């Protein structure tokens, strides 16, 4: 061992100067980007760390140590909001993976009007989230909404999609999937198109069925696309706010509150220090959940 390390050391030492070769561009080229990054990102982040430790009225602030974090953890609905956030992220990212992959397989096969269907699937991604939220709020109205009126024609008594506390979060999650599945589909289409046709031909010669080709060729080879879709939609789900706010405002009561909506409500109420503390909590939560997830997904990919 020691011997190997000793013999290895000189090589590394020799390699360093090569890596550290002067860049052809002077260091001050970094300055514009560094200033923008520092002013618009680093400074506010550090300031928010400080303000999360204060009771802040915008006009003045009092240092109160970790009281905001204690208060935030005591928020009666924080625990519920945390659970809701995770449920929401899992549901939306799970459904986006399944539906996105299914749609992508369909839209890469030889079907009529393929280009048209691809744009139809992608179209909801382009629409404003708040607009989608308001539209679906109208569609999901318990008595006058088009969804329940349609169900009534079939003799089904539709539920109160957004006003039933047990259902509200799931209704919003479904709308999120409807709106976001187009993006997942596009990522999957790109992944599937990149798989060389040779593999499918080889599989066919070996006598594989369509289902087997999907299971043993398409699925493993579009893993990078799956990783991207999961990470993007999981982070999106964790910090989701706009759709929830447009559709239920966390209601009825607190039934569909997520961390982001809890934070926003603290901000709205003028508890600026408390809501900043909430943002720090959200930042930590996303980091704690997503960094291991990314590492795990990427490691599996590397091993194959």
């Amino acid at each position, binding site marked *: 061992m020691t011997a190997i390390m000793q013999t290895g050391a000189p090589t590394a030492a020799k390699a360093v100067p090569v890596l550290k070769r002067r860049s052809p561009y002077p260091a001050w080229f970094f300055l514009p980007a560094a200033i923008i990054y520092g002013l618009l990102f680093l400074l506010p982040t550090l300031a928010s760390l400080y303000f999360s430790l204060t*009771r802040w*009225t*915008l*006009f003045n602030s*009092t240092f109160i140590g970790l009281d905001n974090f204690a*208060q935030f953890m*005591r928020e*009666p609905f924080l625990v519920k909001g945390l659970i809701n956030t995770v449920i929401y992220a899992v549901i939306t990212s799970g459904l986006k993976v399944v539906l996105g992959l299914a749609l992508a397989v369909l839209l890469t096969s030889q079907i009529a009007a393929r280009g048209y269907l691809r744009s139809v699937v992608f179209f909801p991604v382009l629409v404003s989230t708040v607009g989608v939220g308001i539209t679906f709020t109208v569609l999901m*109205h*318990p*008595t*006058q909404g088009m969804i329940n009126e349609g169900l009534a024609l079939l003799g089904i008594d539709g539920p*109160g999609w*957004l*006003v*039933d*506390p047990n259902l509200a979060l799931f209704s919003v999650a479904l709308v999120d999937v409807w709106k976001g599945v187009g993006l997942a589909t596009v990522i999957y289409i790109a992944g599937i198109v990149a798989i060389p046709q040779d593999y499918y031909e080889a599989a066919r010669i070996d006598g594989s069925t369509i289902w087997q080709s999907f299971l043993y060729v398409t699925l493993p080879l579009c893993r990078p696309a799956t990783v991207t879709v999961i990470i993007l939609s999981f982070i999106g789900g964790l910090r989701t706010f706009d759709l929830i706010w447009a559709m239920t*405002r*966390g*209601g*009825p*009561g*607190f*039934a569909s509150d997520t961390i982001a909506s809890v934070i926003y*409500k603290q*901000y*709205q*109420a*003028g*508890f600026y220090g*408390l809501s900043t503390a909430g943002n720090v909590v959200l930042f930590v939560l996303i980091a704690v959940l997503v960094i291991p997830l990314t590492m795990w997904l990427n490691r599996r990919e590397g091993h194959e």
Partner: protein
Amino acid sequence: MTKTSRRTTLFGFTAALLAMTALSSAASAQSISMTYLIPSGADGVAVAEELVKSFEAANPDINIDIETRPGGSEGDNLVKTRLATQSMADIFRYNSGSLFQAINPQQFLVDLTNEPWQADVQASFKQVVTAPDGTVRGAPMGAAMGGGIYYNRAIYEELGLTVPKTWAEFMANNEKIKAAGKVAVIQTYGDTWTSQLFVLADFYNVSAADPDFASRYTANEAKFATEPAALRGFEKLQETFEAGLFNEDFGAAKYDDGLRMVAAGEGAHYPMLTFATTAIAASYPDMLDNVGFFAQPGDDAASNGLTVWMPDGIYIPQTTSNLDAAKKFVAFVASVEGCEAQTRAGGASGPYLINGCTLPDDVPPAVTDMLPYFAEGGQNGPALEFLSPIKGPALEQITVEVGSGIRTAADAAALYDEDVRKQAQQLALPGW
């Protein structure tokens, strides 16, 4: 284009700009231009436009531009941000009472204590725009409001009901209305703020039973959960839900639906603040005579009285560069001509807080019903938010839960007490 000629062009352009600026400032030397920030909403904008029009007619050298902002807590943040960044309009309209205290009036608003028109402003209003140092910083904008219950007079007539003086009578009326196959109580949780009325409008009954509640509440000595009188508001909401009196779509209906339903007789009762009279007059003018109003009844007929909301104030921020003109406008709003302009634009919705202002004879029934509470022998008292700076921000979600059967009244009151603690700490009140 060479470098030199480009520079010359640039120079010429700058010179032209400078000349234009000089011209326009010369023009504004003759007339003063000011901005007036108000919350958006059709009726409020109409009133502001009428006020500005009448004021400009009398003061041709002053020109006022109306700016609008969102209402609710979004608007609160906007007002605080503009004050903190010294970019507030020359005059602005904002709530009085607890929200007024939260914008740091002492630091940001011009002291109006010694303006001559203050002599005609009623003391009950001055009290709610007084900064902690005892100076008055605003003038009343709009009429006093009551919190109570709108009722459909046609339904009352048809079923032979009388206006209830106690909660038991109210519930008995509700049962009869329900038995007749009609919606007895309208609730509109699509706009969550409308869910708070049963609790907030019960405050006259709270203070009738417990006169010191507000001060003990501010001092962290009295709680909603532990004072039976205060808990009643939450219980009343729970009772109406459990009796199955609500409209079918109460979870999704909005404020405007509520107004339509009570005006058109789709429902019998709608708990609301009387500013809604203006909105009903604007949207359903031909049904306005169908709508009556009464105070939220307590448990004792002898102490039946109205919970009163003070109107918004108008304020001048210290950053204004047109102080004299701004003061002139505020004086106009706080004058009899000001009241008349407001009535012209929005109709009368209640008594004004300026001495000498009168209401026209043909006010709608909902306003007529409200006046006895203000007359001799009538009983009224301010809502809690004018007696205490503390109002918990989550009340509307909590009352939605009670009104939807998700949470019991006792549990909700305890949760609200917890919510209130944050506000008290934010305001750095002693004893919290």
